[in-house]
């Protein structure tokens, strides 16, 4: 037995130890934490100004100051209305986190529950659920998201529903195949022999064993959701009124051709770093949590 198994560590604790030893993963985690803090600050700013009915700093226009390159007062320069690009980036981070979290809150329960039910009970229920997710999976995803947003109306709700209602499918597939593997395992048969109800076995025994898939899926879906929101806001279907990275890229696009490089550069960098950090951390997390790579399992 390995040292960790001898110490009787759980999968989570073992995974954390493995992760801690990887420098890149830790750096990425720190970056994510930094973005989360920035997003939180942005949220506080937003609420504060909404309650007080004042104009927030990032919406203050000053035409005299338009198109300023980065300097000490405006770290990322100003845009066409003289607004500080850096502060708008902060709001963009806030929107990105909103999207990532809410879409996960929609997609994860649906995918998890349906996957558990399909994998465990099999038979007709499985057929129905497989039909359901095959149908959703066969619709071209960007189009589907755009169509949902069109039907529900412009704004963040459309994005939440659109991304959430398409993102549950991969999770459901993964959970279903994993639960099917667990269904035949000795501990499940033992639980049945002990007379435990299906619900108890499913949620108290099998669920903890497949939960790591949910975590990894969340970490890898978050940047995809953010990316989709950016595209939708870019097309004008997403966030209205409030700054978001997609809207900023749209504004910066034409001005890039006039030589205003800082707006585009700043947004690209902000978006890129967040997505990269999540992707790298998600990969490392997946490797660390993979039960097959555990040191031993007697």
């Amino acid at each position, binding site marked *: 037995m390995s040292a960790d198994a001898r110490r009787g560590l759980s999968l989570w604790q073992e995974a954390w130890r493995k992760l801690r030893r990887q420098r890149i993963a830790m750096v990425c985690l720190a970056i994510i934490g930094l973005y989360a803090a920035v997003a939180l600050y942005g949220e506080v700013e937003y609420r504060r100004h909404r309650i007080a009915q004042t104009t927030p700093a990032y919406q203050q226009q000053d035409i005299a100051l338009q198109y300023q390159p980065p300097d000490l007062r405006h770290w990322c320069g100003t845009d066409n209305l003289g607004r500080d690009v850096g502060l708008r980036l902060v709001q963009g981070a806030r929107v990105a986190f909103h999207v990532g979290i809410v879409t996960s809150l929609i997609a994860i329960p649906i995918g998890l529950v349906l996957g558990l039910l399909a994998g465990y009970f099999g038979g007709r229920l499985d057929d129905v659920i497989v*039909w*359901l997710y*095959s*149908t*959703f*999976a*066969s*619709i*071209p995803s*960007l*189009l*589907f998201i*755009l*169509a*949902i947003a*069109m*039907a*529900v109306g412009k704004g963040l709700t459309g994005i939440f529903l659109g991304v959430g209602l398409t993102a549950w499918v991969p999770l459901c597939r993964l959970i279903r195949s994993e639960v099917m593997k667990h269904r035949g395992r000795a501990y499940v048969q033992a639980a049945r022999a002990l007379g435990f109800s299906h619900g108890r076995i499913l949620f108290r025994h099998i669920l903890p064993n497949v939960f790591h898939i949910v975590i990894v899926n969340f970490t890898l879906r978050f*940047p995809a959701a953010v*990316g989709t929101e*950016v*595209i939708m806001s*870019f*097309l*004008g*279907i997403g966030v209205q009124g409030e700054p978001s990275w*997609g809207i900023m*890229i749209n504004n910066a*696009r034409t001005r*890039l*051709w006039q030589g205003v490089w800082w707006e*585009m550069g700043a947004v*690209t960098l902000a*978006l*890129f770093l967040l*997505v*990269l950090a999540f*992707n*790298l951390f998600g*990969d490392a997390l997946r490797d660390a949590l993979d039960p097959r790579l555990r040191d031993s399992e007697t």
Partner: protein
Amino acid sequence: MGRYILRRLLHLIPTVFGVIAITFVLFNLVGGSPGRMALGEKASPKQVDDFDEQRGFNKPVLWGTRIKTLALVDQDFARGAGSWTGVSNATLAAAAGAEPSYLVLRGDVKPPLAFPLRGGVEYEWTARWRQPGGAWLTSRLRMPGDSTLSTIGTLFKDAGPDVHVASITLRRVVANPFDSQFVNYLANLARFDLGTSTSANLPVAQLIREGIRPTMLLALPILVTELVVSVSIGLLCAFYRGRWLDRAMVFVSVALMSLNYLVWIVAGQYLLAYKLGWFPVWGFESVTYLFLPVLIGVISGLGANVRFYRTVMLDEVYRDYVRTAFAKGLGTRDVLFRHVLRNAMVPIVTNVVLAIPFLYTGSLLLEFYFGIPGIGYLSVNAINSSDPDVIRAVVLIGSILYVVVGLVGDLLTALVDPRIKLT
């Protein structure tokens, strides 16, 4: 083999039906009504009704003989007069104690219709009313829309001058209960009638047919080039596993993958077309207009594909037969391209086949921002101008393609790998 195909085709039917149902729900139900969706919030009820009438959206959803109409909103007078305020000869009697308020009609009353009722269509009035001091009754009156009755007096037969009304509703009568939106949708699909575009005023089927060629001209080169390049790099990475080249490629792949698609398009257009002037910026005049979008399409997809193919190759490279091949003295090139590549074909073929249905939507963004008039361009325009028929058709065809191509992919996989038996 034949039985397998038959079984898969049978499975195909519920999935396609599911997609038809979803597109129906999404476009006919969720948005309020397609008329409302296409014309927007500011359109008057008459305009929306005209639109709906033209497209057959004025019918019950699944089946039935009565359907609400936009001409008059249902009114329960216990809640107030609603649209009936200000109608001459009709006053609202306030609620008194336990008795809720009701409308008092005295003489001729013209109902506050949002637009004149249609001739040639039958309507039905339903009212719950009473004579003063009498019991509550419910009456119905059917009449054609162009009837000369401008009042609804005949609804209250043999009534005195005063009538108390508790609620009144108006419905269109549909002769055939199966003449519903859903049935019509299915019937149109069977005739390959995909509807009409509101912005272009052309049949959707024609628009899609015209858009296929540009989309294919863009998407096929991207698919082929991407396949060749990613598989080669993947093979290289698998072979030099662990060495700096591999590690660098993995990091670069993840980095490339993390750059948002939009950034590739914007940066590519700016740097290569505008600044350096190597490619034309926008349009579809000749083949040269395709070079830049294809280049951007390939590079942006490179990251994810290289990662995938690298994993696939790695699974193969560790097998025993590779070691045997090297031990027998075969060179790297032979081992990689003749043996490893062939055995890795199954996941490669699956991946390529799965990508084909997405060719059809033709990278919406590439087409839109480079002005290539394909199906993706059509879709984005339809979204921007709220054109439900077009989007619905594109989504439907895309899904059917996905399902059919999935079947073909499974068959191909079986052909390529003799170990797979299609039972």
